[in-house]
């Protein structure tokens, strides 16, 4: 059983006191570009998941505490939780280093569209 500490209100509880919101950092393509969403982008957003064996970044909600969402970094084999960070934040570099290259590539790719946007 997972024992989770809410980084927002600081309360510690069992997994049943929290709600798992699944894989984190999935950006909705329509938010950035409502008119030109490709079928591929929409599929990736709706269905494609990294599903790594090992370090994972996911969303949790402090159900029976403050009710806020936050991110957790957890190992999907050992169940160890390595750390928490805010719902609007990217994973700290130290946690990202532990993760599968898939995750590192994800944040590399995520940087690009905003860079493009800045140029235009």
């Amino acid at each position, binding site marked *: *059983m997972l024992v989770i500490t809410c980084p927002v209100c600081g309360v510690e509880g069992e*997994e049943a006191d929290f*709600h798992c919101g699944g894989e984190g950092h999935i950006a909705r393509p329509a938010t950035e570009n409502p008119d030109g969403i490709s*079928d591929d982008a929409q599929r990736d957003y709706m269905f494609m998941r990294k599903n790594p064996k090992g370090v994972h970044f996911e969303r949790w909600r402090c159900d029976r505490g403050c009710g806020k969402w936050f991110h957790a970094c957890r190992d*999907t084999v050992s169940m160890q939780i390595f750390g928490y960070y805010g719902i609007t934040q990217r994973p700290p570099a130290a946690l990202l280093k532990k993760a599968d290259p898939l995750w590192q590539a994800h944040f590399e790719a995520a940087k690009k569209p905003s860079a493009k946007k800045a140029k235009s």
Partner: protein
Amino acid sequence: MTCAALPPQSSMGCLKMKKYSIFSLAKNAGNYHKDWERAWRSPEPKKEYDVVIVGAGGHGLATAYYLASKHNITNVAVIEKGWLGGGNTGRNTTIIRSNYLQDPSMAIYELSRSLYEDLSQELNYNIMFSPRGLLMLCQTEHELRAMKRTSHANRLVGIEARMIDRAEVKELVPIINDSDDCRYPILGAYYQPRGGTARHDAVAWGYARGADARGVDIIQQCEVTGITRTGRKVTGLDTSKGHIKAKKIAVVTAGNTSLVMQMAGLSMPIESVCLQALVSEPIKPAIDVVVMANTVHGYMSQSDKGELVIGGGADSYNNYSQRGSFPALEHTVTALVETFPIISRLRMMRMWGGIVDMTGDRSPIISKTDVDGLYVNCGWGTGGFKSIPGSGSVFADLVAKDQPGEIAGAFSLDRFKQGRTIDESVAAAVAH
């Protein structure tokens, strides 16, 4: 062994396979059962195969069996990192039903259920199919209406099903709590008389024996570490027993599908979560049907040994460890104690978990991929066991012909891109 060199036989396949019968049983009993031959070989991998199937669970072995028996493709290996049938095939609650809502789902699950009917005869292996009847309790008005709709849909395509009232539920399941004095009183039930159970290990063993007899190599303790390709075409696999060349690769690895497909550079619309089950101490016959209570998240049947076999919902977060968490079990048992009060003081003997591969629409994936010669069969989620024969049959067609048949076509990977998802989040019932 010379199985592969023999011409294919029409019914029993390889001449080497000794038929199991009352006579062979009597003969071996005379010698204290010391002379039974091994049911399948343990060969070393050859350098090259026409088809390599990754994963020797029920689906992988059934695929191998139908490739050999229906399509006469026998230069086939099934490679398995553990032992055959040791994953979800040996971890499920053995329930067989076909009460799904959408047409493609009904087609494949009913094909599967109907193949189970005479699978023991076909494989010459007793899989102990027991069509004892299956009930899905309706405990809210909404569920009652949803199940009525499902039963009508089932009857339209010829799946035997009907709605029954509380009195008939009580008649079929005398130990059930039929009072109004509970949080979710029983309002009725969906009843599939030809649903039931089978012996899960025997299904894997029967298909393994049948495939092996037709020349298929089943290679256990052989883990895939890489998939090699030239351009858009697969060429083989790196394994813990060396490189194996393959013209076609069929990945049937359930909870590990994302990892194996990643070796070929493909990502999958799948999340791996733990689904748990547990059994009680054996008791005298108490319940001779399968009862599913989806509103409260629990289902139960009784095994031939007398144990109550109990399943519930999946854990809520990604998991590769084959060990679930306690709250999910507690939730299931709490629900079942209210539904079946007599089990409240029963001791539970064993609990275990399997890693199931959940898709976004709770329907499976039987598909070609963007890589030539690479096929995938996964996403059965919490309903893999019931679908083994149908899945193996249609997947073998796809691999043999490089073209999906009528049933498999609907379950291709591109449905997620085209938006034609097959939503079975209600029929998949308890586990999401």
